[in-house]
């Protein structure tokens, strides 16, 4: 296995909404299975690095970059992506 998946919702973990604009982080796990399934199909995998590039002008959405592609996530989607600071 290259990377494992952790479905336990650990409250002390950071998620995307807690990142500063421009900050990068490593995806560690997802908090919700259904959202995880869809996010993983779109290339968000545990072990990949993501960067938060922008927040939407009227709030509510996050603009992230993973490898060389870009995704927009809603707050409740972004909250489900658990991360640790990139070393």
């Amino acid at each position, binding site marked *: *296995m290259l990377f494992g998946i952790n479905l336990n919702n650990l409250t002390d973990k950071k998620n995307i909404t807690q990142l500063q604009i421009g900050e990068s982080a490593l995806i560690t796990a997802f908090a919700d299975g259904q959202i995880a399934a*869809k996010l*993983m*199909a*779109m290339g968000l995998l545990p072990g990949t690095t993501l960067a938060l590039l922008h927040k939407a002008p009227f709030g509510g959405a996050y603009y992230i970059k993973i490898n*060389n*592609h*870009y995704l927009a996530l*809603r707050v409740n*989607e972004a909250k489900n992506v658990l991360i640790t600071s990139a070393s």
Partner: protein
Amino acid sequence: MSVQKYKIALLGNPNAGKSSLFNQLTGLRQKVGNFPGVTVERKSGIIKDNAIDVEIIDLPGTYSLYPTSLDERIAVHALIDSKNRDFPDAIIYILDVTHLERHLLLLTQISDLQFPIVVGLNMNDIAEQQNMYCDEKLLSQALGIEVIKINGRTGENMAMLKSKAIDLLQQPISNRQVFYTINEQEKNIAKDVALLLPVRNEYHALLLAHHVKRSTFLEQNIKQQLLQINAKHQFNPINNQLDEIMQRYNAFVPIVNKVLKRSFDNAKTLTDKIDRIVTNNYFGPILFFGLMLFVFQAIFAWSAFPMDWIDLQFANIAASLQASLPDNLFTRLLTEGIIPGISGVLVFVPQITILFLIITVLEEVGYMARAVYMFDHIMQKFGLNGRSIVSLISGGACAIPAIMSTRTISNWKERLTTIMVTPLISCSARIPVYAVLIGFIVPSYKLGIFNAQGLVFMALYLIGIVSALIASLVFKKVLKSTDVSFLMLELPAYRKPHWKNVFFTLYEKVSSFVFGAGKIILIVSIILWFLASFGPSTAMKTAENTAIIESSLMQADSATTQLHIASRKLEASYAGHLGKCLAPIIQPLGFDWKIGIALITSFAAREVFVGTISTLYSIGKDADNLTIKQKLQQEKNADGQPVFSMAVALSLVLFYVFAMQCMSTLAAVYRETKSWKWPAIQFAYMTGTAYLVSLLVYQFLK
């Protein structure tokens, strides 16, 4: 020798360049229809090759075999339902080399379904710009699938891809790597499913068990039995789905690392730089509204000339036919019913073309996804989805294609709400009505740099937009939904528009209007012509005689007499009767029976209002707006008051802002929702609002 018929499906992730490739493969020999039961466009094209006939089907893009929206589900059903009309004999898979990992997920899934596959490796030129290189021979070896480097935009290696795909039809599948090994529990489920349904292999059986709830192609009793199988084995679809995706990534990430040479430099890409401005907190929204202003400016300024030209051409054709053909019923049907009907459809082509040209280009370069991202949150507050913004903007041209564009919204409630409120956005057919009536509301004078009439025009558009948002709020409260709502939107890297794609999309949208809406507009205009030309025969004769006597009393010249006869006859016709029946209902709004007739005839398309009013007031067909306005201003009713007072004009114009005066839109809503319930509700709430608003305005101002 009999001709063998085969189906090859074109499959890939969204944004993989599938439509460019489809256009390259089939050119203009493509057919656009609908997938059965839904209005998702089904594009197919025929390739002939010696003794075989191959139909190429462009399946909607999807990220995996686990769909989340209607069009993704169509693609998946075509692959797992062996009785599906589009179940392919082979698959051409479009793989975007710049997003190899993500796009390999679906490929390994269909590979495990044992389809014959050839891979078109696309976007190599962009990969080169990003210092990426993919060894397609190694990739082909690792997958056990033929891989060909192609360029969907230039058509490079298209012939090779085509011939390899055709070869697949006669070759057995050679040894492939299996990417997903199913576990004991899944094996048992698959065994039970295989007893119930014909399956290709265990993975196929498992997918059928997974998708049972949304599988419209299964009979009810089969569904029940599948659900029982799932319950018996305590099948948890989400967990299995996650395990499967992880296992697949684990299997192909090492392959990617082996075949792809790349360097992730942290340098800012062009897209990074553009989006610093385009999605900026302040500049982003300003740019968006600037673009919208540009769109509306373009619709008004650039379409006036071609619209007048189309109008004139058809008027000339009708006139010359009238002069050269014998004066009989057929000639009149042709020159007064059919030709004006066609003209009424085609006159909107310039506006619709311009709007969709701009929308398509914005979509092609990648801007629309940014607009969706920026406004999703606001749209959510109104019970809509960020994607609704594309439909609402398209509604400014014509509600029909706008309603069709809602299919990318995966949440049913959000999609339905978008469908229900889009017709409140003032479409191009309202413009002629507004243009004639606005002169009665305010005179043309300058307010600073603005023209007062221009401001009223803008206000009417704003009322449309605001009321669409208010209606959304109501639907948000009323409609129930258990569907989860997603955004999860891919923001594609900015790229130059591919003009061939723009052309094909534009061609499709415009022809869907001309042949979809146009058909209904034409039929309704013929019916309305009949209603307006015929009546109880004695009444029609009396009307003509009365008109002749009245004209001679007024010592009118022959042209005026003709106009007067036409007006009197329309009054005596079936349409006139309908108008008079309507009169008591619409009288509180300030409308007389003549306006009643126009309300009925404009149900074909709103702009018919202008033509009907011109006939009723004996203005003549070729009059321009100015003449119509001047003539209408002179019209007095029985007590000497002008018919078109400010109160009546405002009441009428607001009626057109709100009322559901469009047969074709209702038909489109029926097709999208597959029920007459929603078009009926839409008609009731829009026309009801129109009635109330007009009533209040007229009673207050008169």
